[in-house]
């Protein structure tokens, strides 16, 4: 089964059928991450009709009790080409997270380079004192996703070269740690960061990315987030709980985004 088909089946037959109250955070995170993924595909004219159908279904959900709901609804509206008025924050100083800063910047077309500078500075200041663990590596990947607008703006191209070199060296350190610990989810996020900072990195990594799939791509289309027990998870898939499934779902859409980026930036897909 290909990955698109698995995502469609999982989303419509499991996620939308589940009671959100089982784990409200994971439920809305799943919807939010998928709508962001579709928004990025839409931006490249690569949003397939099967995903659009899922977005239509997601548009019927109630988001009023969820803090990120206004941003999910805006992403859905863009995917569906409909107007959506809301009370988006427009004042940058009000942002409470780097995600919110990102959404404020893209939905209001505001240049937030100064804020991203601040975030990069803080990040380096903290890891200089504390080193980097898995949490801070995830923070770094998201900082690069958002500051680069997923490779769509000039922030990292115009960034001071020494600072860029520091970040790239840190990404290399993370890469080697993730390979040793077989953390495929974070590994693929790090590959995306390299591509978003400098698309020339594609030629360095393409081959190793595609050849590593044999370790964690299931015959059912999904990707294992970490470890080397692919067959165990294939055999026990029906027993996995919501958190396990979320883990697999997240790695699958991250890997699909990585494949899309590789193909788009290598010119294999038209944009």
């Amino acid at each position, binding site marked *: 089964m290909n990955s698109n088909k698995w995502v469609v089946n999982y989303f419509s037959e499991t996620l939308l059928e589940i009671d959100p109250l089982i784990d409200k955070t994971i439920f809305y995170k799943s919807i939010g991450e998928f709508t962001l993924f579709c928004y990025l595909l839409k931006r490249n004219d690569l949003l397939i009709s099967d995903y659009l159908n899922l977005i239509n279904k997601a548009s019927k959900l109630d988001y009023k009790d969820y803090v990120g709901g206004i941003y999910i609804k805006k992403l859905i509206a863009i995917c569906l080409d409909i107007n959506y008025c809301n009370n988006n924050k427009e004042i940058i100083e009000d942002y409470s997270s780097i995600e919110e800063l990102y959404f404020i910047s893209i939905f209001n077309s505001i240049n937030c380079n100064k804020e991203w500078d601040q975030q990069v500075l803080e990040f380096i200041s903290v890891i200089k004192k504390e080193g980097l663990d898995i949490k801070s590596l995830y923070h770094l990947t998201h900082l690069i996703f958002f500051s680069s607008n997923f490779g769509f703006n000039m922030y990292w191209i*115009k960034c001071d070269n020494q600072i860029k070199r520091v970040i790239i060296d840190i990404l290399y350190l993370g890469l080697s740690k993730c390979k040793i610990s077989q953390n495929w989810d974070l590994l693929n996020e790090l590959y995306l960061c390299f591509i978003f900072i400098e698309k020339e990195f594609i030629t360095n990594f393409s081959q190793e990315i595609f050849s590593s799939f044999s370790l964690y791509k299931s015959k059912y289309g999904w990707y294992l987030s970490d470890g080397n027990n692919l067959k165990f998870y294939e055999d026990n898939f029906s027993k996995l*709980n919501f958190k*396990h499934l979320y883990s697999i779902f997240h790695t699958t859409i991250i890997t699909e985004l990585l494949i899309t980026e590789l193909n788009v930036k290598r010119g294999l897909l038209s944009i």
Partner: protein
Amino acid sequence: MSKQITQSEIKAVLKKNGIHSIDDLTKMLIENDSAPGIISKKSSQASPLNWIISFWRLPNLIKDHRLDDLPNELGGELLK
């Protein structure tokens, strides 16, 4: 991840790239950017804790384990 990236590894990266202090970094950012604004060395309010960032790992099961034996936390740990 079995081993985190240590403070000394980060310091080595900074040194290799000619950065010896956070003041150096601040200066570079200010010099590089023509946009108005102040870069403070003090932490802003932006928190890394939010609705998208999280991390999660599947248990690295050995073949004798059964899913029923696993504690709930093993499915992934979300940042609060």
